[in-house]
């Protein structure tokens, strides 16, 4: 399980973030003592850090600058400061992404998984059981037979694969598609999913995607 460190002084927000991350299959570690945040950042050995800019006694940007001298652990800045200047500064100090509050929880999770993937240098080839998922070719390959996926199908499959075994809601799928400039409607999503199922069936995996009524889909 990936460890994600939350450095956020607003208690309500911190608690809800922890719940969100836990539900999404991460292990959240929330900082509650802000006297030696810098030390904690180095010692916890997290896979990713969510860092607020405004913290008691210390500025998130300074922390980041300091942290970057020793560690390449990905950092996402979470802030309610809505200025481009802060964003450019944070990025120049080595932040991997910058998200302003309030954030769409699904988008936050998408960004987290994107940053994690980038830092692990996940190749363009991923595996689902004995199926090879190539994001470069945009295809699924099993036992030498290949199914070409459309962009939408790739986005859907990628999200299901990232959260394999968990329920992915239609809302989450929709958000992921829209986030990739595919402004589809409800019907189009259903069509895309049934096409994806069809392609998986061609690879003799007709039951790979399971429907959970009124909840969403699970990639088994």
């Amino acid at each position, binding site marked *: 399980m990936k460890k994600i460190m939350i450095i956020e002084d607003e208690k309500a927000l911190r608690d809800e973030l922890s719940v969100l991350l836990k539900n999404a299959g991460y292990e959240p570690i929330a900082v509650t003592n802000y006297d030696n945040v810098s030390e904690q950042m180095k010692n916890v050995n997290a896979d990713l850090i969510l860092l607020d800019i405004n913290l008691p006694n210390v500025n998130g940007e300074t922390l980041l600058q300091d942290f970057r001298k020793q560690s390449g652990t990905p950092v996402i800045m979470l802030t309610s400061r809505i200025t481009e200047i802060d964003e450019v500064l944070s990025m120049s100090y080595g932040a991997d992404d910058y998200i302003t509050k*309030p954030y769409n929880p699904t988008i936050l999770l998408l960004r987290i998984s994107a940053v994690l993937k980038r830092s692990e240098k996940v190749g363009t080839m991923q595996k689902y059981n004995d199926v090879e998922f190539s994001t470069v070719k945009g295809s699924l390959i099993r036992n030498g037979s290949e199914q070409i996926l459309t962009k939408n199908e790739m986005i859907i499959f990628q999200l299901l694969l990232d959260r394999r075994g968990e329920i992915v809601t239609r809302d989450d799928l929709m958000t992921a598609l*829209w986030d990739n400039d595919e402004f589809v409607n409800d019907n189009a999503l259903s069509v895309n999913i049934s096409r994806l199922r069809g392609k998986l069936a061609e690879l003799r995996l007709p039951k790979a995607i399971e429907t959970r009524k009124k909840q969403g889909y699970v990639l088994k």
Partner: protein
Amino acid sequence: MKMADYLKDRFTEHLIYGISWVLVLIFMAAFRISFQATVIISLLLLLAVIIADAWGYFRKKSYYDKLRYCLDELDKKYLLSEMVENPDFLDGRIFYETMQETNKSMCEHIAEYRRENKEFQEYIELWVHEIKLPVASLQLMCHNDGNAKYAEQLKRIDDYIENVLYYARSGNAEKDYIIKPVSLKRTFADIAVKNREELQERNIALRTENLDVNIMTDGKWLSFILGQLMGNSMKYKASEISVTADNLPDRIVLYFRDNGIGIPEHDMPYIFDKSFTGENGRTHKKSTGMGLYIVKKLCDKLGHGVSAQSVQGEFTEIVITFGKNDIHNVR
């Protein structure tokens, strides 16, 4: 300054000179001074008056003409007192010193207001920053508890908060933005995701074309602008929003078009005016008349051109022009 006006202004002095001259004539007649001597004395007196008038006139004329010229040429008239010099005649000096004094007091007065305004703006920024925290917490709670009902209202609250923030920013004389290349595609997708629930609920289709360009602007301001335009389209019953960019050699033109109810022709000239709600605002729900006004002000500050076309009952199209190299247009 005209000679006639100058003489008219000195009418009383000349009247006194005239009366004095008549008295002198009477005295001279009484003392039986010869006619020639009287004429010569009169001419000498007249000459003295003419010389004094001419000297006085040209001295003031040169000063006031220069003052007038400066006033006409000045873009900011209140800087006049910085431009003119202290004159060498008494009334001019008194006037000059008065002007300096009042100007100084006015400057202090304005500085005071400017400071208050700035403080207020800083407070708004801080306030927005603070209120975003509970909003963010609530949004996560809604998501974690699977309660979508409140999320919609929260989004409305967040939109209103952003309005206040950008209104405060648009009126601010200081530069609190940065111009850098911003992906139009990314910014639009963010706004679309943000408004996805409402767009889908209203069954509005989005079409985009050629958005894969970088434009020189402030990303946050641009996303506010696009958000406002999208909000308007949703409010005024569009079923399709199409966003197209046209990449020209010297500029990029963005067309934000919807097929909503459109704007009546007689309202078109005023749609960017403050607090203008127009017919649509009256007949449809909730319009503050601030959205497009703020959009226009932000565009002006960033140096982008913004205009609108519409046919009532057919479409509304907002056109924003981004210069490719117009940093110098930024205000």
